[in-house]
């Protein structure tokens, strides 16, 4: 009986530029990208102005929900960010929900969430420079007194780190706990059925039916959705805060 918990496996290696490693994360990430692109194409084709079909109603509903969220949090001035927020939300949510299909979650890898957090930081700095100018951006580190500049710089670095760790930690904890649970249930059902001399029957993990589904509702559906919401919310709050 052994439990094996690893990071994303390396699937294969492209032998150019000293070997580019294609991990499960990259592979599944492209699955998510294709899925989201296909959904976007599928929902928005053949759009009409009168008597819209079910597909168009769904697309309009998603669009108005996204616009309401962005307008409510960032204000009317920043609705230009809505496409990015929508893409971030869709990628993060589908990336977490991918574990329902048995593939590894894309967001259960620090590289993915780290990339999201770095993108957010770049947008925050860009918005700050666009609003206040380069000098104003540099000056914002010395507020309220020049003495606490190091603390401001540390908090500027700590922000994306905490964002990346929060999303990664939640999803990775789900992966670890789910695999521990599966191993424990296999051991327990082996204990129950172990007295049967036929090896095939004794190895049926009978307790794995049902109980993991309850865990999956929390760790896959609830956490995946909540973390996507949180990362979008933090991005919106930080970006609109930088543009004031």
């Amino acid at each position, binding site marked *: 009986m052994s439990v094996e*918990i690893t990071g994303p496996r390396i699937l294969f290696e492209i032998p150019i530029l000293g070997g580019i490693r294609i991990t499960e994360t990259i592979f599944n990430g492209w699955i998510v990208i294709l899925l989201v692109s296909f959904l976007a194409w599928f929902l928005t084709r053949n759009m009409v102005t009168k008597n819209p079909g079910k597909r168009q109603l769904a697309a309009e509903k998603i669009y108005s929900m996204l616009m309401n969220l962005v307008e409510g949090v960032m204000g009317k001035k920043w609705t230009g960010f809505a496409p990015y927020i929508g893409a971030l939300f869709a990628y993060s949510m589908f990336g977490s929900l991918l574990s329902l299909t048995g593939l590894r979650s894309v967001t259960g890898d620090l590289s993915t969430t780290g990339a999201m957090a770095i993108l957010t930081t770049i947008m925050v700095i860009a918005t700050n420079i666009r609003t206040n100018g380069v000098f104003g951006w540099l000056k914002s580190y010395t507020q309220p007194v020049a003495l606490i500049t190091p603390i401001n710089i540390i908090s500027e670095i700590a922000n994306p780190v*905490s964002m990346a760790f*929060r999303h990664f*930690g939640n999803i*990775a*904890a789900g992966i670890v706990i789910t695999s521990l649970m599966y191993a424990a249930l296999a051991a327990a059902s082996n204990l129950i059925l172990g007295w049967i001399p036929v090896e095939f029957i004794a190895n049926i993990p009978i307790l794995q039916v049902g109980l993991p589904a309850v865990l999956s509702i929390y760790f896959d559906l609830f956490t995946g959705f909540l*973390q996507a919401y*949180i990362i979008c919310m*933090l991005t919106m709050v930080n970006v609109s805060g930088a543009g004031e």
Partner: protein
Amino acid sequence: MDTTLAKAIVMAGSAIGAGLAMIAGIGPGIGQGYAAGKAAEAVGRQPEAKGDITSTMLFGCAVAESTGIYGLVVAMILLFVNPFVGQI
């Protein structure tokens, strides 16, 4: 010293460290419980604002969780990556 013994000691230390790191779970537990209690009070006082209260509480909980998540990440790195074994 024997390398195997040294490795065993380092791995034991990593396991104990992971357990100690998870003590960080106390803080977010108390904080989230407090937030949930306050949210329950707010819903009791103003039931029509339930949706807003719930989303605000979930957002606050998820942000308050980060210190616990740091502890979890440290514990997972100690358990599954074994960064100190390579230094023997």
